[in-house]
């Protein structure tokens, strides 16, 4: 049975530690803003659906979720800072959608990598491989080969997804 890519990555990752670079304050604000924006747009999208399909208002969502109506207004308008997982879960479920956290791998790969040292046979071998074969483990593999990329190392971008699937609890409640 072929080895899974994650176990191969684990093996490669244990050989050499990748460089650690602290995020700047500005970068922290940026990544938080991006996730907040994503969460809010999806919650608002779900609210638009609820308004259109069920004809519910914030008051109805408040009754279902137990979250204060004013608080729901503040959340959807982006005035509420640091939303908790609990609030997101309750509000999303009240709107009949299932929230889920998706982590996109942002490790540099393929064309996004900076040129590597040509004298290294490992680098030449890696560059000659088709792009399809170069997966998430490429960065680790190059680091393991003693090569540096100089690229900012940010492992993953997070995104909240709210699937427009009917929530069983709400279906039962409405019947």
């Amino acid at each position, binding site marked *: 049975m072929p080895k899974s890519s994650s176990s191969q990555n684990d093996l490669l990752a244990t050989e050499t530690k990748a460089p650690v670079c602290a995020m700047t304050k500005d970068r922290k604000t*940026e990544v938080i803003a991006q996730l907040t924006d994503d969460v809010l747009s*999806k919650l608002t999208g779900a609210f638009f659906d609820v308004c259109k399909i069920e004809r519910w208002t914030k008051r109805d969502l408040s009754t279902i979720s137990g979250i204060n109506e004013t608080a729901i207004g503040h959340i959807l308008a982006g005035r509420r800072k640091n939303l908790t997982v609990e609030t997101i879960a309750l509000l999303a479920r009240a709107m009949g959608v299932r929230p889920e956290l998706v982590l996109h791998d942002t490790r540099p790969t393929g064309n996004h990598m900076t040129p590597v040292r040509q004298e290294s046979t490992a680098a030449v071998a890696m560059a000659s491989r088709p792009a399809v074969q170069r997966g998430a483990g490429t960065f680790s593999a190059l680091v393991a080969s003693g090569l540096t990329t100089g690229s900012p190392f940010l492992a993953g971008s997070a995104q909240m997804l709210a699937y427009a699937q009917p929530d069983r609890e709400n279906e039962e409640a409405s019947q």
Partner: protein
Amino acid sequence: MTLKSNSYDKDREEALQRALRSGALRRYEVQLERGEHDVRRLWLRPTVGAQLSSAGMDQEQLHRIQAALRRFVVGGLFNVVSQTCENPGTLNLADIRELKSDPPPFVEMRFKPPKHHLRIFGRFICKDGLILTSLAMKSPQGARSRKSLDVREELKRCDDFFRGQGFDLNWCPATIEASITNAKII
């Protein structure tokens, strides 16, 4: 035979290129991460970009605005309130709001949190191609320190810009539904 729409596309792209070369417009570009693509096109007038950075906003709000613009470019979900929306609860929650005007749609982009009630006005010149022509906000330094936002003035500014650059309003999608993809329109 050349289709009318094809000739529109060609003329539009040429006019856009001219505006970019002359510096009348600037393409808003984002640094794409793995798996992301330029799905939508966004152009700003240079004055809008300059105003954004000097509008007295804190770093956090600026990043929130950049995140929303980024979401537009990479084709993320956008919540749009149309002119005909009858649900008052959704009016202030939109990312894009279609304002009352004759077709083609004149829109405002809104940002969360609405700390300074910042809006950027513009028009879709093609499907998923938005030109933002002016920025306005309601009293960032207090209720009486700035004159109130006048949408008609912003619409006139937008029309003047389109006329000045030779952008034909016939190139613009006639409805908000035809202007943007991956959008929840209410």
